[in-house]
């Protein structure tokens, strides 16, 4: 695993998240479900809790965006870049953007939203890309089955290096 320079992390254990802009590829309920499962993958391994917000500013603002969307990292249409997220911090920190030009899916026919969301939330929590091909934080897309998903060892080590382990 790798951390961002300066090792930014959240100073609190309960974080808020909010989906501000949905995609037309999926129902709102499916997007909410994929996001919830993506966050749960991390909270199962570290002492973090996520609370959904429906208005105002949340720590992790989630949106589906097209092309140039005002953060200096424009999306490039279908395939190529699928999503990006910012390391923990004020303002843009923690925010997670998905390329609306992709075909998002809950299954395998397109890009699985849970797979990409779980990866991006790793960035939003402070993990950079891992060079371990078995890690969720490896940069290239590889489908992960959402049900019964457990973080690979490398990602567990990374998140626990930042936040410690979850006491059962």
């Amino acid at each position, binding site marked *: 695993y790798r951390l*961002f*320079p300066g090792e930014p992390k959240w100073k609190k254990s309960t974080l808020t998240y909010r989906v501000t802009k949905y995609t037309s590829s999926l129902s709102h309920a499916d997007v909410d479900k994929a996001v919830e499962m993506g966050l749960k993958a991390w909270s199962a391994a570290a002492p973090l809790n996520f609370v959904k917000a429906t208005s105002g500013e949340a720590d992790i603002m989630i949106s589906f965006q097209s092309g140039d969307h005002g953060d200096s*990292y424009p*999306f490039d249409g279908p*395939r*190529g*870049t*699928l*999503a*990006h*997220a910012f390391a923990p911090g004020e303002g843009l920190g923690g925010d997670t953007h998905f*390329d609306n030009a992709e075909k998002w899916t809950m299954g395998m026919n397109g*890009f699985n939203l849970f797979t*990409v969301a779980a*990866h*991006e939330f790793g*960035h939003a929590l402070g993990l*950079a*890309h891992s*060079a371990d*091909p078995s890690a969720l934080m490896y*940069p*290239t*897309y590889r489908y992960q089955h959402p049900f019964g998903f457990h973080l690979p060892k490398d990602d567990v080590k990374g998140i626990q290096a930042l936040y410690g382990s979850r006491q059962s």
Partner: protein
Amino acid sequence: YSAAAPALFALPRTTGWKDFYLAQEYLDKYYTPKGEHHLGEMTSGSNSMTRKVQQMQAFFGLRVTGKLDYSTMGVMKRPRCGVPDVAN
């Protein structure tokens, strides 16, 4: 790059100009720390690109040749996360 590339950055037979531009864009996006963009290209030209290819190949566990070979282009063409692999 148009003048310097053929000499300094030999393209394997299988790599066309389309791949070269794709690679250039990829390396700019994922292997150029913010702030280094134009300065790096202006001062070190194709050598800078070779260095970035090597960095990318090392990250992905590929053979580090600094050249745009088939397996390197294969990784560059995979869908991926937009967060750079090098520190920003």
